[in-house]
């Protein structure tokens, strides 16, 4: 981990300071510390403020509106998502966060009465032009409720790697990739000896990390997370937040959250949505300390939502 962190180029001084500090702590101690200060974790240094100016733009959303029948759920939203960042979508219930997220990998198509206008570009390609299965392999998703498949832990992670209609790869070929995904999701140490056990026997927090391992196994470019911690206890939440911060080194993360503290802890940028409109998008610190829009200020202050 350490070398990867040191190599990411675009750190501002204060991130680097935090990283150096954390690197001096043994990994296990660090996790123990995280556990000890859960659930509130207010005293964790805010670790971000990565500048997005120098990083690669991965996903560009241009004037996207999503309709259920003729009722708009997302109204003309434009934003971009960069490699190596965590973008949090916040806003009151029913404001279109999840709909927007599901539009990014065209999962809204599964809803019969949904339609959308505008363009979403993945590395410059219109996602509507891509084959949906290929798009979803590149833009993967983790859901609110942990939803492991009713099969073994190994098969859950290997599921995404097994190509359809071609020769099914042997277990020996898949093993390194599966182990690597489990390691990246921080689950490997806990399950290494019972990869053949049913995934349904894992705890909720472990199941969610398994779902993350499954989602990152085929090396997606973007990871969409729909309130991944809302069904979990504070301890599992802490583990997963830490995991998200590690994952952003390799991919872009878009996370929908109702938990403002969580957005503040892990996001580089925050987008505030209200009634389908994107009200404000900015660096996390700016959104929380100096929002430009009154609605953002009121929401963050807890006036509504």
């Amino acid at each position, binding site marked *: 981990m350490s070398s990867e962190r040191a190599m990411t180029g675009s750190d501002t001084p204060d991130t680097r300071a935090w990283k150096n500090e954390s690197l001096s702590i043994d990994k296990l101690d660090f996790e123990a510390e995280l556990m000890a200060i859960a659930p509130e974790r207010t005293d964790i240094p805010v670790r971000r403020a990565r500048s997005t100016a120098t990083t690669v733009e991965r996903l560009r959303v241009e004037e996207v509106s999503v309709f259920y029948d003729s009722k708009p759920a997302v109204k003309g939203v434009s934003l971009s998502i960069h490699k190596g960042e965590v973008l949090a979508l916040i806003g009151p219930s029913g404001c279109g966060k999840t709909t927007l997220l599901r539009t990014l*990998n065209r*999962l809204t198509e*599964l809803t019969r009465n949904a339609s959308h206008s505008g363009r979403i570009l993945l590395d410059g390609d219109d996602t509507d032009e891509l084959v*949906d*299965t*290929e*798009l*979803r*392999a*590149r833009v*993967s*998703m983790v*859901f609110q*409720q942990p*939803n492991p*498949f*009713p*099969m073994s832990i190994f098969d859950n992670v290997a*599921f*995404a790697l*097994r190509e*359809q209609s071609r020769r099914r790869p042997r277990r020996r070929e898949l093993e390194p990739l599966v182990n690597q995904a489990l390691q990246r999701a921080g689950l490997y140490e806990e399950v290494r000896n019972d990869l053949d*056990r*049913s995934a*349904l*026997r894992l705890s909720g927090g472990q199941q969610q990390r398994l*779902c993350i391992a*499954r*989602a990152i196994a*085929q090396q997606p470019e973007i990871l*969409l997370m729909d309130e991944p911690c809302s069904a979990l206890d504070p301890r599992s939440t802490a583990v997963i937040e830490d995991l998200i911060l590690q994952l952003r080194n390799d991919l872009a993360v878009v996370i929908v959250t109702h938990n403002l503290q969580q957005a503040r802890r892990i996001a580089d940028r925050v987008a505030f949505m209200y009634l389908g409109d994107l009200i404000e998008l900015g660096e996390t610190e700016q959104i929380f300390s100096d929002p430009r829009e009154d609605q953002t200020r009121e929401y963050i202050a807890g006036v509504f939502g």
Partner: protein
Amino acid sequence: MASAEPLSPPRLAPPPRRGHGRRSPLRSWRPRDQIVFVLAWTAGIALCAVLLAVLAFFAVEGIEYLRPSLLVTHPSPSVNQAGSGGFLDAIEGTVLLGAIGLLIAVPVGVVTAVWVIEFGRPRWLGRIVESTVEIIAGTPDIVIAIFGLALFQLGFFSFLSFGEPGGAFGRSFLTAGAMMSFLAIPPIYTATRNGLLATPRQMREASYALGKTRIATIRRVVLPAVRRDIATGSTLGLARIIGDTAIVILLLGSTLRLQSEGIFGFLSGTGSTLTSYIYNNSPAGDGNAAQKAYAAAAVLLLLVVGLNWAVGRVGKIGGPPLHPPSRRLGA
């Protein structure tokens, strides 16, 4: 809510009038509840008593006449009971018919349920399929049997049973098995359907979100998720097949012995099962050898009890259930 009063211990809620624990004797219940309570217990115990009586009767009567030799010797038409042999052919027939019936019913039932739940478009067609299965479930087996006889006596189907050109005998293991599958399809369909309905949508979405097609999702995620329901439905369907008599008598011929001229001769030949054996040897049938009927009934009953036990077992295979197993759904 803003009260400046000093904190006082919360006032206790009045104790509930009725509880369900040991502290609430039946005497303190309302009369109506007492009556329903007694009725519920009586009904439950009565049901168990009837089942126990059946089991006890055949345990005494059946096992008394059951000899290991009965299980392994061929029956022969003889009035002298010492020479009329055992019911090996009937056991073979039961097993064979169950296998053929399931071989047809499992794919049909599962695929139908998957189509109705996962696709089900156009809607009206889905509704028609639903009610068709319900009607099949409610159709008396004798009606299915006579329809099968009329169907398989057509010359077109003569290859399924022996016959002369232009017509067919219509009675064979293949024709009986095909009609038996109609008995097994409803429980298999119902169990699979309920399993599919209980499979969370998020599980399918998770597969789509990993870039899998609909077919791959059904094959690799949805069907494994309902394999236990399929197993439960199949066991219930098998129990219906091995317990059926009408189709055996009309479509299998209920001949004492199996044909044994190669595998196809075997399958397109006639035979009997334990149920028809019991019927024929009961005082109502031709054989009038009640002891052998009792012995065969004991074997059949053991098979059914064993199958019911197996239904409970398959519910526990392979980790905790995804959802409460849908047992006892068979029509």
